[in-house]
């Protein structure tokens, strides 16, 4: 069943309250929309092929732009998935308002703020860069994903100009799929 079919099927009756049942909407579904998926694909292609094959200022910045388009949705999706797991383990948490599942304006705004804060701080301050690297080493102590290094480069902050596009896409997602697809009738 397509999303459109789900929406048309549910539009005839009031949407049930979002209870976040395990078989309901997919947690973090906002990440499964076109813009974040496209940005993820661009990031993967650029990091593993394009900028290796054609190193330049543009390909160097391409992944930064992709990060700005992906990270806010990745943060909200991760938060949503953690809530989903929490609800499965501790069902009473579902009743708390701020733990309700799904993308909201507030969550989108907070994740965009975090994205701007992180990206600008690690590209403007060596101290913040060091904290970021310490965090990466703590998360991946065995260096599975590589030997983490980062060059402070203020020009990378130019990618933040795409934040309005993130907000626009988030609004669009909320508007067109207010509760995100449900699979239960």
């Amino acid at each position, binding site marked *: *069943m397509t999303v459109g079919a789900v929406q048309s099927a549910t539009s005839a009756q009031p949407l049930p309250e979002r209870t976040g049942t395990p078989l309901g909407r997919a947690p973090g579904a906002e990440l499964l929309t076109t813009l974040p998926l496209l940005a993820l694909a661009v990031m993967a292609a650029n990091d593993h092929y394009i900028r290796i094959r054609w190193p330049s200022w543009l390909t160097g910045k391409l992944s930064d732009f992709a990060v700005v388009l992906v990270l806010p949705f990745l943060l909200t999706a991760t938060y949503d998935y953690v809530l989903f797991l929490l609800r499965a383990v501790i069902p009473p948490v579902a009743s708390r308002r701020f733990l309700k599942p799904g993308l909201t304006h507030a969550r989108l705004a907070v994740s965009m703020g975090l994205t701007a804060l992180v990206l600008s701080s690690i590209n403007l301050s060596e101290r913040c860069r060091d904290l970021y690297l310490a965090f990466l080493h703590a998360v991946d102590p065995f260096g599975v994903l590589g030997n983490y290094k980062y060059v402070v480069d203020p020009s990378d902050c130019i990618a933040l100009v795409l934040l309005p596009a993130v907000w626009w896409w988030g609004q669009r997602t909320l508007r067109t799929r207010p509760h995100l697809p449900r699979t239960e009738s």
Partner: protein
Amino acid sequence: MSSALRAHSRHLLSLVVILAGWFLMMGQQPAKTRVQVVAASGDFPIRVLSMSPGESKVFHRLPSGVSVTLAVPAHSIEVTTQDGTVLLRAECQVATDCLPSSREVFPFHLPRIPAPASSAAPSGSLAAPVSSAPIAPLPVRVDIDDRASRRGPLKVVARTASGQSATVVYEQSQEGC
């Protein structure tokens, strides 16, 4: 049954995309290379990338497997006399995979300063007088010491037809990859 299966598939897909996103995000680092001029010597000074000894610049990721290259598009090379007169200024046109093999002429063209018609140099041969009258035509050949650069610092050698030479040694450090 199929509805439940679809729901589980969607949950799984969501989890996979989230994990893939973090995986890419953590692996995504603006890998750059710092290039520093560590030595310069010779009969006349050459300055590649307009850098002086001790000066360094950061470049975006270099091709993996190629340990040394200066082939960031549109960087310039200058050959000057000791009194600072510019003999030659050229731009590197090569984007990648550009570290020439040993002793091969570094492929430059001269887009900014046209050489006199009588001594116009073919692309790739790097022979061009670029300043005005007092400077005699000075064909210069630039070699990249590739063998040295693979394991150690990059050495750029410029030679004139009369046998004069100048060398610049660059040191590179991977700072972001």
